[in-house]
C-alpha cells in the first residue's frame, strides 16, 4: 500500500511514457517496419503507462480521499508595486485525487486496448508511424490533462488533446470530407476553448489575491493545496462574476464534450479511423468536458444558476442527440450520436451536484462505448462499409463481434446487470432525488428519462440491421470474417468491463473513490426501485420495438406518404443545425470577413500604396530634372542664385525688421 501511494510521486511518468512513444515512433517509425511501423513500440509503452496508471488508481482506492500534489514552481515573479502582493507563480505538477485516479484508469486501460486493436485494424493503412505517433501524443496529453494540478496546466493539455483530435480526425487527409471534418471539429471546439479560457480568467480575477496562501496569483491556479482541495467548495458564493465564470466553463465543456449547441462536430469526426473514434471521440477526449465540469464543481464550485444551466444543457442534449441516432444509416454515426447523448447524462449528473455519479457513468461509458466502437470497427474492417442497410446476417461469420456489440448495446440500453444500468440508474435516481428542492430540473429529468427508450431502440436497431437475418443485403460483402487476435482480445476485455464495471461499486475501495467529497445517490428506497424498474422497462420496450421493426433481417420502410417522413427528414438533416451553422459561417461571418478584407485591402493597404505612389511619382518627376543638358543645369543654378539673393535682400531684412528687435 505504501508502495502504491509512493507511486503518486512519480505519476508524471504516465504521460512521459507516451511522450517517449511519440518521440520514438514519430522520429524512427519509418525504420521500424518489422514492428508494424512502430505500432508495437507504442503498444508496449501504452501498456507500461496502463500498468502504472492502474496501480496509481488502485493506490488511491486503498487510501480514499487522499490528495497528493507533486508540484514544481516553473517560475515565480517577486511582488512588484501595484501588482499582486504575494508575487505571481506558474506551477506544473501532478495531482492524484479520487477524480484523477478514476480518469487515469479509464484513459490508460482504454488507450492500451485501442492501441493494441489498432495493430489489426490499421494493418493495411499507409502513414502508420504518423498514426501511432499521434495516438501516443494524444495519450500523453490526455493523461497529462487528467493529472494536471492547476487550471492553466489543465487548459494547456486541453488544447493538446484538441489538436491531436484534429490530427486524427484528418488522418485520411487526402479525403476532402475528412479534412473538412477535422477543420470543423477544431473550429467548433475552439469556440468552447475560448469560453474556457475566459472562465479561467474570470476565476483568476476572483481568486487571484483571495484564498489560502495568498491566492491563486501566488500559487499558480492550483486545485489542491498540499493534501486537501485548495478552496473549500462552499466558498463559491453567489456572485455574478462566479456565475459567469461557471457558464464560461460550461461553454468549454460543451465544446469538448459535444453538448448542444456545440455538438455538430462529433458526428462528422467519425471520418477518422474507427479506433480514433473509440478512444478519442467516445471514451476519453470528449469525456474531458465532463471531467472539466467535475473538477470545477469539486475544486471551485458552481452557483445555482450555473447548475441549472448545466442540467439544462445535459438533459436536453441527452434527448436531442438520441433522436438523431434513431434514423441514421451509418453505424459509426449512430454510436456517435449515442455518445453525445450519454455525455449529456454525465453533464446532467454533474450539474445536479452529483459529480462522482457523473464520473461513474463516464467510467462505465468509456468501456462499453469503446467496446461498441471497436465492434463496429471490426464490422467495418470485415465488410468495408459503414452503411447499416448493406449489412445483415453478420452474426454468423462474426460471432464474437456480434456478441460484443450486443453486450455493449445492452449496457448502453441500461439493462441489468450490465455496467450501463448501474451508472445510468444512479444518474436518474440522483437527479430524481433533487427534484423536490429543485422543481426546475423536472423537464430535463423527463427528457433524460425519455432518452432511455430511444437509446435502447437505436442501438438495437443498429444491432439487428448489422447482425440479424440470413445474409448481408449487399451481396458484395458475403465473405466477412473476424479480425486477427489483436482485434479480438480488446473486444473480450472490454466486454468483460462492460458486463462487470457496474459491479465495481461493490469493491470497497472503488466505492471510496466514488463517494468522496460529493453527494451520494440514494439507494434501495422504494422510489429508487420503482424508478429503476421504469427505466429498465423503457429500455426493454425500446429493444422490443427495434426487434419488431428490424429483427430477423426485416427492414422497416416508412410509407412515402407517412406524416413521419417530415420528422425523419428533419432528423436526418440534424435539425438543420449544420446547415444553419454553415449559413452563419458563409453569410454572417463571411460578410464580416469581407468587410475586414475590404478595410485591409483598400483602407490600410490603400493608404500605404497611396503614399508609395505619391513618392514614386514625385521621384519620377524629380529624376527628369537631371537631363544631362548643360543649359538646364545652368538654369537651375541661376534660379538658385535668384532665390539666394531674394533671401538675402528681401526676406532676411524683413525678418530682421520684424523679429530682430534687440
Amino acid at each position, binding site marked *: 500500500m505504501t508502495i502504491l501511494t509512493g507511486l503518486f510521486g512519480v505519476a508524471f511518468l504516465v504521460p512521459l511514457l507516451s511522450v517517449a512513444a511519440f518521440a520514438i515512433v514519430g522520429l524512427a517509425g519509418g525504420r521500424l517496419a518489422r514492428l508494424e511501423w512502430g505500432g508495437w513500440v507504442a503498444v508496449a509503452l501504452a501498456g507500461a503507462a496502463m500498468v502504472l496508471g492502474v496501480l496509481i488508481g488502485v493506490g488511491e482506492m486503498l487510501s480514499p480521499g487522499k490528495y497528493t500534489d507533486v508540484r514544481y514552481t516553473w517560475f515565480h515573479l517577486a511582488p512588484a508595486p501595484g501588482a499582486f502582493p504575494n508575487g505571481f507563480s506558474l506551477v506544473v505538477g501532478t495531482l492524484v485525487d479520487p477524480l484523477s485516479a478514476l480518469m487515469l484508469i479509464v484513459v490508460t486501460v482504454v488507450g492500451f486496448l485501442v492501441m493494441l486493436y489498432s495493430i489489426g485494424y490499421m494493418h493495411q493503412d499507409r502513414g502508420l508511424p504518423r498514426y501511432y505517433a499521434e495516438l501516443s501524443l494524444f495519450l500523453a496529453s490526455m493523461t497529462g490533462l487528467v493529472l494536471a494540478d492547476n487550471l492553466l496546466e489543465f487548459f494547456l493539455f486541453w488544447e493538446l488533446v484538441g489538436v491531436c483530435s484534429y490530427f486524427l480526425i484528418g488522418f485520411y487527409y487526402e479525403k476532402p470530407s475528412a479534412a473538412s471534418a477535422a477543420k470543423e471539429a477544431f473550429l467548433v471546439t475552439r469556440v468552447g476553448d475560448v469560453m474556457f479560457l475566459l472562465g479561467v480568467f474570470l476565476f483568476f480575477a476572483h481568486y487571484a489575491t483571495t484564498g489560502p496562501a495568498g491566492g491563486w496569483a501566488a500559487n499558480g491556479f492550483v486545485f489542491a493545496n498540499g493534501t486537501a482541495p485548495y478552496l473549500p467548495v462552499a466558498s463559491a458564493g453567489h456572485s455574478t462574476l462566479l456565475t459567469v465564470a461557471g457558464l464560461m466553463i460550461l461553454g468549454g465543456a460543451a465544446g469538448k464534450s459535444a453538448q448542444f449547441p456545440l455538438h455538430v462536430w462529433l458526428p462528422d469526426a467519425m471520418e477518422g479511423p474507427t479506433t480514433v473514434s473509440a478512444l478519442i471521440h467516445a471514451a476519453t477526449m470528449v469525456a474531458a468536458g465532463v471531467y472539466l465540469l467535475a473538477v470545477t464543481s469539486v475544486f471551485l464550485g458552481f452557483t445555482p444558476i450555473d447548475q441549472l444551466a448545466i442540467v439544462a444543457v445535459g438533459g436536453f442534449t441527452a434527448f436531442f442527440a438520441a433522436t438523431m441516432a434513431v434514423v441514421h444509416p451509418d453505424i459509426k454515426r449512430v454510436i456517435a450520436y449515442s455518445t453525445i447523448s450519454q455525455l449529456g447524462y454525465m453533464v446532467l449528473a454533474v450539474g445536479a451536484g452529483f459529480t462522482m455519479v457523473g464520473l461513474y457513468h463516464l467510467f462505465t461509458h468509456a468501456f462499453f462505448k469503446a467496446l461498441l466502437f471497436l465492434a463496429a470497427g471490426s464490422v467495418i474492417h470485415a465488410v468495408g462499409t459503414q452503411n447499416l442497410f448493406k449489412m445483415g446476417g453478420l452474426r454468423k461469420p462474426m460471432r464474437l463481434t456480434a456478441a460484443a456489440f450486443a453486450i455493449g448495446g445492452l449496457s448502453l440500453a441500461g439493462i441489468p446487470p450490465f455496467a450501463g444500468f448501474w451508472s445510468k440508474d444512479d444518474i436518474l435516481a440522483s437527479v430524481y432525488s433533487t427534484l423536490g428542492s429543485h422543481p426546475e430540473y423536472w423537464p430535463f429529468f423527463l427528457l433524460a428519462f425519455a432518452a432511455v427508450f430511444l437509446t435502447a431502440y437505436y442501438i438495437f436497431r443498429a444491432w439487428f440491421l448489422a447482425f440479424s437475418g440470413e445474409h448481408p443485403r449487399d451481396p458484395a460483402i458475403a465473405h466477412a470474417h473476424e479480425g486477427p487476435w489483436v482485434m479480438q482480445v480488446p473486444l473480450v476485455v472490454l466486454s468483460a468491463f462492460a458486463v462487470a464495471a457496474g459491479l465495481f461499486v461493490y469493491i470497497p475501495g472503488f466505492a471510496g473513490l466514488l463517494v468522496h467529497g460529493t453527494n451520494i445517490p440514494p439507494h434501495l428506497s422504494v422510489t429508487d426501485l420503482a424508478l429503476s424498474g421504469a427505466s429498465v422497462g423503457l429500455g426493454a420496450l425500446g429493444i422490443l420495438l427495434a426487434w419488431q421493426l428490424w429483427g430477423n433481417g426485416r427492414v422497416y420502410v416508412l410509407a412515402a406518404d407517412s406524416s413521419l417522413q417530415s420528422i425523419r427528414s428533419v432528423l436526418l438533416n440534424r435539425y438543420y443545425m449544420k446547415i444553419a451553422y454553415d449559413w452563419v459561417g458563409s453569410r454572417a461571418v463571411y460578410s464580416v470577413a469581407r468587410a475586414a478584407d475590404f478595410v485591409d485591402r483598400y483602407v490600410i493597404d490603400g493608404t500605404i500604396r497611396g503614399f508609395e505612389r505619391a513618392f514614386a511619382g514625385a521621384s519620377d518627376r524629380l529624376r527628369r530634372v537631371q537631363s544631362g*543638358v548643360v543649359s538646364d543645369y545652368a*538654369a537651375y543654378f541661376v534660379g538658385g542664385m535668384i532665390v539666394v539673393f531674394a533671401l538675402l535682400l528681401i526676406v532676411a531684412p524683413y525678418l530682421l525688421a520684424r523679429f530682430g528687435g534687440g
Partner: protein
Amino acid sequence: MIALPPIGFVGLSGALLAVGIFGILTRRNFVLLLISIEVAMNAAILDFVYFAAYAPGTANGLSGQSIAVVLVGFAATEVAVGLAIVLALYRVKGTINVAEATDLKL
C-alpha cells in the same frame, strides 16, 4: 580721376551679366555658349576694375586691378580648355549642340 557715376558702372556690368546669362541659358551652340560665358565673366572683371578705381588710395585699389588681370588670364585659359572640349565633342558626336551632349548624367 574717372568721373563716371557708380550707378552707371554697376548698371553696365549688370547688363553685361544679364546678356551673358541669357546667352548661357538660350544658346545651344557650344561656341556661342563659351562666348556668353566670356561676356558674363567680363561683367565681373569690369566690376573689379571699377571698384578699384572708385576707391583709390586704399591698399585695396591695387589688389582689385591685379585680380582683374589674373581673371583675364583665367578667362583665356578657360576658353582654351573649352575650345578643346568643343573639338573633342565634335569628334565624338559630330555636333557641337550642347543639348545632344547628355552622356554624363547618371
